[in-house]
């Protein structure tokens, strides 16, 4: 099977989806392929900070300026993905006074609204800040839902004619002489929306131009065309608390260091992070000390964190890059700027560009610059509309609140649903059918789950990132099953079982790093519900766990009690 497209984008993270949307809106035919789910690489594994730029105001003013510009743009075009929490850079007595002054100055010079607060003023705003926090700088940091934002880009790209293929792994770059002209992908199922258990196929996709937007994996992709891209992947841990101990982004005001940020995110707070270079972005140690550092170090800023409940921890890998000749040793010192590697100019191989480095907040600006570059290569003259055109869900948000009813839902459920869906709320939630809550922790109803399934197929992790279902306190213990039930009857029983197992395993993965206190109790309850009550661990229908389609073991039903007198 072979297909043709104008531009082929590799990677379904924020960069790839941003580029796909941008090029599709400029009228190009775009195909995007992603190995797993959208956001599965680095985008879905970050702390969800919408930078004000304050973080870079001392070390990298160019980045800082770009951050504040994009911060303002995203508030407009992606309002339903952003919560403007505001941010504080807080200083403890041992942190440097001169750095504090430099930070304040830097913010002002980069156009970042910044105001110095006393320790008392900072605690009035965030009462759980430590008593010895002496000063703070207020900046317009925010929280952004990277899943929602990335998916909205993909949806809009599709609305403009793009083809988005998830679970399509690039197995080869097609190169003839000095020209890259496409890829070969292996579809996990399909092509099309994911459907567990249907056999996949291999497809050759040829294109006028190929954009390698695979971030930390860019080196692996380039190597398929015998090109070298020296990405320096660097891991960082994020630890999720079950409540928002703070409603403002809290940054430690010091030059660098592990565990220096707390981002309030939906009903949780996310602690971050570490910065350690790794060799393989798919295989690196997830270490106990990293989680302990988050809790112990950030408790210096917000002491109640030491006793609080953590839900899970996860790791992400930054796609850091610098030209090899720079040779920076410490990954924290590698620039967060992005690099556009034109392989024609660099290696004499045409048809391919690789994007490395960069940061989430400026994904749109990166996408614009890369799209300009691709358009230049293809001789296309079209202006970039992405800074003005709102993403699906964010159109006319200011009018949303007034005119809308609650769709028969209890008000906390309705409020949270509308926050997630934005201007898509009516289209998704208005239904004549009963619309019970599927995920009580996050307030997700059947209608929203079914909308996500319609977008993504039988992949419940794709449903999770779209809806937040299974991301709350119970970490899926109560709602994984009901989520899976919604796949039936469109998907058959074996497919539903596979999808459920996959989601339940994924939820367990993060909880392993939070197995003490309340979450350990929750984990045992989840285990008991799924193993004791449902017998999912020893399900006779899945006689061979590695092959759910194997026939049930010849369970001898007649050997068991059939009831008294039977």
């Amino acid at each position, binding site marked *: 099977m072979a297909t043709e497209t104008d531009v082929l984008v590799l990677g379904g993270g924020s960069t790839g989806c941003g580029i796909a949307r941008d090029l599709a809106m400029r009228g190009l035919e775009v195909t995007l392929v992603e190995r797993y789910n959208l956001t599965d690489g680095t985008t879905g594994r970050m702390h969800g900070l919408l930078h004000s730029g304050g973080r870079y105001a001392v070390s990298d003013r160019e980045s800082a300026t770009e951050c504040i510009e994009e911060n303002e743009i995203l508030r407009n075009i992606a309002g339903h993905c952003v919560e403007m929490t505001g941010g504080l850079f807080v200083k403890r007595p041992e942190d440097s006074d001169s750095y504090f002054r430099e930070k304040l100055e830097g913010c002002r010079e980069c156009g970042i609204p910044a105001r110095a607060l006393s320790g008392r003023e900072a605690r009035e705003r965030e009462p759980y800040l430590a008593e010895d926090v002496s000063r703070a700088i207020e900046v317009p940091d925010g929280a952004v839902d990277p899943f929602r934002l990335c998916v909205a880009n993909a949806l809009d790209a599709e609305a403009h004619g793009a083809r988005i293929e998830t679970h399509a792994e690039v197995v080869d770059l097609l190169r003839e002489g000095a020209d890259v002209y496409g890829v070969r992908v292996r579809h996990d199922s399909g092509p099309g929306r994911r459907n567990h258990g249907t056999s996949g196929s291999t497809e050759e996709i040829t294109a006028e131009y190929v954009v390698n937007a695979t971030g930390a994996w860019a080196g692996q992709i380039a190597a398929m065309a015998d090109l070298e891209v020296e990405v320096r992947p660097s891991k960082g841990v994020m630890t999720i608390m079950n409540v928002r101990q703070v409603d403002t982004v809290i940054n430690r005001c010091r030059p660098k260091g592990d565990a220096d940020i707390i981002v309030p995110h939906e009903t949780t707070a996310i602690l971050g992070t570490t910065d350690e270079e790794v060799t393989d972005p798919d295989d690196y140690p997830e270490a106990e000390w990293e989680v302990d550092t988050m809790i112990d170090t950030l408790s210096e800023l917000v002491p109640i964190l030491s006793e609080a409940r953590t839900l899970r921890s996860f790791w992400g890998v930054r796609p850091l890059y610098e030209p090899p000749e720079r040779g920076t040793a410490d990954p924290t010192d590698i620039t967060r700027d992005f690099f556009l590697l034109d392989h024609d100019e660099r290696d004499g191989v045409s048809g391919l560009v690789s994007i490395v480095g960069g940061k989430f907040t400026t994904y749109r600006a990166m996408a614009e610059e890369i799209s300009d570059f691709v358009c230049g290569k293809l001789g296309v003259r079209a202006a970039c509309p992405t800074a003005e055109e709102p993403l699906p869900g964010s159109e006319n948000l200011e009018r949303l609140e007034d005119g809308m009813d609650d769709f028969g839902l209890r008000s906390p459920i309705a409020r949270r649903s509308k926050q997630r869906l934005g201007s898509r709320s009516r289209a998704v939630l208005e239904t004549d059918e009963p619309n019970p809550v599927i995920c009580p922790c996050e307030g997700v109803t059947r209608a929203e789950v079914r909308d996500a399934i319609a977008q993504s197929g039988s992949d419940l992790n794709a449903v999770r990132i779209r809806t937040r279902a299974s991301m709350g306190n119970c970490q899926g213990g109560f709602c994984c099953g009901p989520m899976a*039930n919604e796949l039936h*009857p469109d998907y058959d029983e074996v497919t539903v079982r596979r999808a459920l197992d996959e989601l339940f395993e994924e939820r367990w993965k993060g909880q392993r790093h939070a*197995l003490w206190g309340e979450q350990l109790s929750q984990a045992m309850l989840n*285990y008991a519900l799924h193993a004791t009550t449902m017998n999912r661990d*020893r399900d006779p*229908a899945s006689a061979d766990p590695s092959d759910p389609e194997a026939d049930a073991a010849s369970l001898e039903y007649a*050997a*068991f009690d059939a*009831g008294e007198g039977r």
Partner: protein
Amino acid sequence: MAIEDDVLVIGGGLAGAIAALSAADADRGARVRLVTYKQSTLRHASGLIDVLGYAPDGEGPLADPFPALEGLPRGHPYERVGIDAVREALDFFDGVVGDAYAGGHTDRNALVPTHGGTVKPTARYPTSAAAGLASDDRDGLLVGFETLPDFDAPLAAAHLEAAGVPFDCRGVTLRFPGIVRDDAKVTRYAHLLDRNERVGADALEEAAITTDGGEIGSRDALAAAVRDRLADETRVGFPAILGDERADEVRADLADALGVDVFEVPMGPPSLPGIRLEEMLYDALEAAGVRVTSGVPVVDYETSAGGSDRIARVVVDRHGAEIPHRAEQYVLATGGLVGKGIEADRERFVEQIFDCHVPHADDRYDWFVDDVFGEQPYARFGLAPDHELRPLDANGDPEFANLRAAGAVLGGYDYAAEKSGAGVSIATGYVTGTRAAEESG
């Protein structure tokens, strides 16, 4: 004057209730008190009484749990108490619950359909589940409801067939007549049927039920909704919401109206069969003269003078007042990680009241394995008792001469994997209760 009893049971779940009931059993005649703090985990439980569904090495499902009980590893609660005690305890349980439970006619396990759609082995089941057993070869219809997303009947039916059950199974999804809110609690369904509330014409029409006109009782309405969908199946299964206090009556009415056997499929929390069992146990405690105080935590304890290894009294917090409770013998039945008799911080596992020794790996990254359903160490951490069920300290000596432990606070077994939770609670509750009463007399 201190509050004084022969036996004080701490914890009001299945293990604690059975301990108190067996201690108060007329033959032994002990004066027994039970104090509980948190809501019991029974309402999380399916209400099935599992004894041993799978051997610790995973072999199973076991058609007969008793031969496997012989081969359990040293330290397993069943190994501690011995098989005879398990049998006596089950007899005792059968006596407490009477007709409400079945399965006591045989040693064999039954395979009960679960709301996830497969089957699980269990030793005793509520009579409400009896007509649903998977070894019964009669064809079955499963009925689910649009507003109960926990149970998808067509999917469960397909899953049962994938599990190889010896009958044809079909599922249908209906609107529940008389339920107005899409997120009504399961107890609302049960009470609607308990009270046989009238269902108005509009609600009937919405549920596509045609009547001669006017409102009818919710049981008739439900039967009418099912009747149209019934083919030649001779048994019909519902999620376990068929009444609370009048569950038997609700089921009988539905069976009469449909001319078939009716059964319930046990559900997750909040679980009506679990709640019904809890109510039954508390009625029995009252009838046996056990003094029950609920909602009060034990906050401290004191040993007898002279550095003795006997507990002299415990201190109970009653709404801010610290009230000493004395007893000759104490039973600790505060539950495991779910019931929070056992808790952990990032460093260690602790038993909450007496700080009894909990053997466990030092590094918390050795508390789990990566496969969610693998052999999970955390599920097995708990107290290590002697054959008398007295918790042992790190040196292998009893922590206290007059303290025994029962139920999930004990370690050395994984009840979720083995399907042994209720059985261990009953067996160890029975042994601790009888021993405590004997020694206090």
